[in-house]
């Protein structure tokens, strides 16, 4: 099943096009707009539709594959991979370590905005709730 993908890129942004594509797929996956087993449109299709270089699209796709977000199915293209089971993703500690840089960033921003850890947690809980609802 092909997912309804509407990529949008801003070539004149400081963010490289391949990163814009990466971010959009990740966001779609996290928000549940695409699910396991959905196919991404082909590199050629995306390149022609967005009028961008195919190598740029293919770079984004291969990075997604490296990170395990999608998997390559021979002759069919890129499919959204199942979310790895906790055990495949490392120990609890390893997984926490991996999230740490993002949390540090959030904490720094929160500090600037005079938000306490409890006030930030309210937001985190809200986002989690939205994800579970999907």
């Amino acid at each position, binding site marked *: 099943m092909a997912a309804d993908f509407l990529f949008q890129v801003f*070539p*004149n*942004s*400081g*963010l*490289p*096009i*391949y*990163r814009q594509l990466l971010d959009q797929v990740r966001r779609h996956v996290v928000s549940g707009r695409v699910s396991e087993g959905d196919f991404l449109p082909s590199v*050629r299709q995306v*390149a*022609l539709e967005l*009028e*961008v*270089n*195919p*190598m*740029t699209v293919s*770079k984004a796709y291969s990075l997604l594959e490296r990170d395990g977000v999608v998997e390559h199915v021979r002759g069919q293209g890129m499919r959204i991979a199942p979310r790895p089971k906790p055990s495949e993703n490392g120990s609890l500690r390893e997984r926490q370590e991996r999230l740490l840089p993002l949390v540090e960033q959030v904490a720094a921003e929160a500090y600037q905005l005079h938000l306490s850890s409890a006030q930030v947690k309210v937001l985190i809980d809200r986002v989690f709730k939205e994800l579970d609802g999907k």
Partner: protein
Amino acid sequence: MNQAENVLEMRAVSKLYGSRPVLDRLDLAISTGGIVGLLGKNGAGKTTLLRCALGLAKPQHGTVTILGEPAWNLSASAKELIGYVPQTPQLYHWMRVQHIIDYTGSFYRRWNAQLARDLVADWKIPPDQRAGTLSVGEAQKLAIVLALAHEPDFLLLDEPVASLDPAARREFLKVVLEIAAGGSRSVLFSTHITSDLERVANHVAILQNGQISFFGELGELKDQIKRLRLISTNTFPERFELPGILRQRIEGNQALVTTRTITPELLDKIETSWHATVEIQDLNLEEIFLELHDDE
């Protein structure tokens, strides 16, 4: 031709006009497949580079190999695989558009007359008009048609979009993308319009002071060159002595620093040495281009 080979290799190429070196021991290698944008200021030597690549100008030093052959001594069969659109198209002004197309086509064994017809129709070039009476934009479009219709393996374009309006430019870029989509054909085009390049090029070559100052993936360039906005509780020194800094502006406890490579070590050093908070700003190609040329 071997697909793994470079379509273009320039080694230690110097081209002088009088005593002024336009290309100064320049090295450039372009591999098969893909679109390379050649970026440089007016007068940086983009046209000279392309002319040397094509064997239309002879450098005083260095070697140029195009499609595996020496550029200065190209065989007819290699020439047949090359398409070139000069900055100012040379058209037979007395001939009608369709006659120029037929005449040019007669020189090539591989000539796609259907493609030529389609492009002429798509781009609304009047086929019965004499070339001399075409507008600048129409003449440029016709030159592009002539360079595309023999389906070259290697297409070189010198400021191809300079006189096209935005709609025609997008049409043209689309054609270039379709050419490159197969992966076996290569495009090198010079421009100073960074926004066109950002969309279609996978590699960028920046020509500066007669040499290629950057060659690499466009995404990589954007990943590397960043502007840092620093704010400290203390006053900053007059100058930062850090590796890779392209440009710096310091005003009391605030600073804007553009850096060639951003590393966690660099950020750590800034944060600890000057008690500064760092905000990393992405730069688009135009901003990067300006930052790189700031010292001139």
